[in-house]
């Protein structure tokens, strides 16, 4: 709650250009530009993503899906909107060191990851998905939470 208010306050501050301060520096320093690519190493620029990176390297998906394939939604806009959002908050969190440890996926990004599975596997699961929709849609992560990076 408090945190949320704090975040929004900060978002405002950025608009005023403070972001150019910390955010901007981090952006360049942490090779922010690469954040916009699909290269998984981009994510690993941050040591705190190292664990996931090295786990991903060993995952069944390393050769078929990069971080972004699972952590950004379909479509250009959504993709870059999410990147901007995560990019900013991750940079911010990283710089200030304010984040839970171990890192917990946010509900939003969890939904994105769930949806990502269907980008590639929709046909396969069409039958088990059946006519179910909305909250009753099958959660893949319930059984396959480690496909991207084994624990």
């Amino acid at each position, binding site marked *: 709650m408090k945190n949320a208010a704090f975040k929004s306050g900060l978002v405002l501050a950025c608009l005023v250009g403070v972001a150019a301060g910390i955010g901007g520096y981090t952006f360049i320093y942490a090779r922010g530009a690469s954040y916009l690519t699909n290269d998984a190493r981009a994510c690993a620029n941050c040591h705190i993503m190292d664990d996931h990176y090295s786990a991903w390297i060993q995952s069944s998906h390393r050769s078929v899906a990069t971080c972004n394939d699972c952590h950004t939604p379909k479509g250009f806009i959504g993709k870059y909107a999410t990147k901007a959002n995560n990019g900013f908050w991750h940079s911010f969190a990283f710089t200030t060191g304010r984040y839970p440890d171990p890192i917990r996926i946010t509900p939003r990004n969890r939904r994105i990851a769930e949806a990502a599975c269907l980008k590639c596997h929709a*046909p*396969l*699961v*069409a*039958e*088990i998905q*059946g*006519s*179910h929709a909305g*909250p*009753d849609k*099958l959660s893949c992560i*319930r*059984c*396959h939470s*480690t496909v991207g990076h*084994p624990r």
Partner: protein
Amino acid sequence: NIMERKQEARNPFYRVVEITDETSDPEIWGKDFPFQYDGYKRTVDMVRTRFGGSEAFPRTPSEADPRSIVARSKLEQDPRLKTMWAGYAFSRDYRERRGHAYMLEDQTYTERQQVAQPGTCLHCHASVYAPYKKLGGGDLIKGFEKMNQMSFKEARAMVTHPIACIDCHDPKTMELRVTRPGFLEGIKALKAHQGVKDYDVNKMATRQEMRSYVCGQCHVEYYFKGQEKRLVYPWQNGLKVDEIYAYYQEVNHKDWVHGETGAPMLKAQHPEFEMYNQGIHARSGVACADCHMPYKREGAFKVSDHHVRSPLLNINRACQTCHKWPEEELRERVNIIQERTYQLRGLAMNALMDFIKDIKAARTSGASEAQLAKPYELQRRAQFYLDFIESENSMGFHAPQEAARILGESIDFCRQGQMSLRPSAAAAVSLK
């Protein structure tokens, strides 16, 4: 070939025949859903595991019982069960469960039928959905009530199939549904107890819950209430053994009078749903179907394996998606849990035998009803607790610690019962 797969992919529920709410015959459903039907038919397989699965025992068919193969007799494996259930039909014939394909014939031909049984029995051994509705003139519950009050023989003539597609699925959407009055009413009472009013499982349950509820239609403790022989699931106070026992005390029900002691007894039957709900998997949102009907790749699709069976015969699919341990390791983990349960179950069984012996002795040496009141209550309780694990079919796996706790209490009840029949160590001397 690829072209076809693409076809399939676009409309997974491509139908070749029409299925209505009266279509009981699974073979017809199978035309539209061949993968599931194939699995369903395979429930005839009989394969053993250490404590589960089933083993085929040949027998010479007779007029009364045409079966040429039956499952192993539990009574012969452990004769103490005959003493435990003395005076009750279960002491005549009690076998290992086997696949769904056998449910109707096993029920029809069990020697337990030598005691007159009501039509109620069919609720969980046949595809009764259509028959109930027919009998009730479109009203499921009415039909249920009518069939309960028939004799088993009479009712048996009205059903043809063991559990079939229609018992778990809505023919239009293929979504899961609960068709069993016993569960509809039982879960309603349970939810009411938890503060949820007028719970309608088919409207209010999540899809994931339904993946267990369809099994909870039958794999539960039950009793026949009153003259109408209404099937009731005793969940009014909750699903724990203590809460169920409390319920039976309140309604003061007894299934039979013990043949050797004269105590008013309760029989526990297959409380898989109740025990599962005390376990870590239920808390983790893992459903019965996750383990007993795991997904299976068929061509371009994943489908639910309708060959419902012991997960230990299918560890790779049933467990390894969630547990990345080697198959052998997973089998060993189950084994450790089951062996521990089995060991404690043995001790509880011994305690019960000692207790029954003592009550008999006390009666022959002329103990009064008053003196027997306490021992009777303790036998009733001890035995119900033990039976709750004995008749539960996972040998403790569904809720390992809870199973051990229940057996521990059962032992305590037996031994205290024995004590109540003996003079105190000190008093012993001053006795006349």
